[in-house]
C-alpha cells in the first residue's frame, strides 16, 4: 500500500473511532452515508477510469508535453489557465483528463493552473447555482476577483518547483 492510501485509511479509521466513541448510532449513521457515497461514486469511478485509460492510449503525448510540459514554463501556465477555465463538467470529467495530461508529460504548474481555473470558473456551477441563488452582480464580482488566481497559482507552483529537489 502506498503512502497516500495509508494516510487516508488512517484518517478514515480515526474518524470512525471518534464517531464510535460518541455513540454507536452516530457510527452507523456515518457508515450508512459512506455506503451511499460508495454506491454513487463507484460507477462514476469505473467510468472515469475507463475514459482515462482509453484517452491515454490515443492522446498525442508529444503535443501535451510541448504545450504543458515543464519546458513550457510560463506558456504552459497560461495555456493551462485558459483551457481549464473553458472546461465544462464536474470532477468526474476533470480529474481523469488532468491525470491523462499528467501521464502524458504535462508539468505540475500547468496542471495546477488548469485545475484552479476549472475550479473558480466552472460555468456549469455558475449557471446552475451561483446566478440563480446569488444574482448576476455577485457572480460578476466573484469572477472578476478570481480572474488572476489561476496564473498566480501556476506561477507560485513554478517558483516552488524550481526550488524543490527532484
Amino acid at each position, binding site marked *: 500500500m502506498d503512502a497516500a492510501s495509508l494516510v487516508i485509511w488512517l484518517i*478514515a479509521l480515526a474518524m470512525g473511532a471518534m464517531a464510535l466513541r460518541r455513540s454507536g448510532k452516530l457510527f452507523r449513521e456515518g457508515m450508512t*452515508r459512506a455506503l451511499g*457515497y460508495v454506491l454513487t461514486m463507484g*460507477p462514476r469511478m469505473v467510468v472515469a477510469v475507463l*475514459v482515462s485509460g*482509453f484517452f491515454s*492510449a490515443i492522446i498525442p503525448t508529444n503535443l501535451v508535453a510541448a504545450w504543458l510540459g515543464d519546458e513550457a514554463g510560463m506558456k504552459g501556465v497560461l495555456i493551462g489557465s485558459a483551457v481549464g477555465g473553458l472546461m465544462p463538467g464536474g470532477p468526474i470529467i476533470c480529474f481523469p483528463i488532468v491525470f491523462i495530461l499528467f501521464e502524458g508529460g504535462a508539468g505540475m504548474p500547468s496542471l495546477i493552473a488548469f485545475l484552479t481555473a476549472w475550479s473558480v470558473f466552472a460555468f456549469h456551477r455558475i449557471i446552475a*447555482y451561483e446566478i440563480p441563488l446569488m444574482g448576476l452582480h455577485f457572480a460578476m464580482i466573484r469572477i*472578476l476577483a478570481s480572474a488572476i*488566481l489561476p496564473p498566480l497559482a501556476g506561477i507560485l507552483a513554478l517558483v516552488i518547483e524550481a526550488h524543490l529537489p527532484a
Partner: protein
Amino acid sequence: MDLIINRIGSEKVPVKENTGTKKNPFADLSFLIFSAIAFIAGGICYSKGKEVFCSGLDASWSMFLTVAPRLVAALLMAGFAEVLVPKDLITRWIGKKSGHKGILVATLAGILTPGGPMISFPLIAALYKLGADMGPLVGYLTAWELLGIQRIIVWEIPFMGMKFASLRFLVSLGLPILAGMIAKKLVLRFGEAPKGGKR
C-alpha cells in the same frame, strides 16, 4: 438572528436528502454523458487496432487498482465527517460580519465544508440575504472551490497523488483571502448587489 440561522439550518436538511446519499447514479445526466464518452473512446481505440484497445484497458485497470482503495477510504472519511461536523457551525462562523478576519474565518470554513454545490450554495445564499459581507462570501466560495478537503480527498489524491495535491494546496492557500480582498475593493467601486427581497 439566531432564530433565522436555526431556520436555515433546518431548511438545509431536506435539500441534502434529495441530493445526497440516496441518489440513483444512473439517473444522472453527466454520468450518462460520460459513459457515452467512455464508449466512444473505447470505440476509437478499437478502430485503431486491438492492441491499442488492450493498452487502453490495461491503463484503466492499473489506474483502478491505484484509485479504488484510496477512494473507499476517502468515502468513509466523507461519511464520518458529515456526522461529526456540527451542521450549524459553519453558518455561525461565516455569518459574522468582520472585515479581514471574516475573510480568514470564511476561508477556513470553506475548506471544511463537505459536499457539492447543492450544499454550499444554499448556505451562502442564506448568509448573503442575512447581510454577510461580500468579501468573506467570495473568500468562502473560493476556498471551498480550491481547497475543499472533500474534493481533494475524494478526487485529487486518488488520481494525482500526494505530491501534486500538496503542492497545489500550498500554492492555493493564500488565494481565497486574496480573492476576498479584491472582492471587497470591487464592491467599493461597483457597489453592493441588491439583497434579500429586492433581488
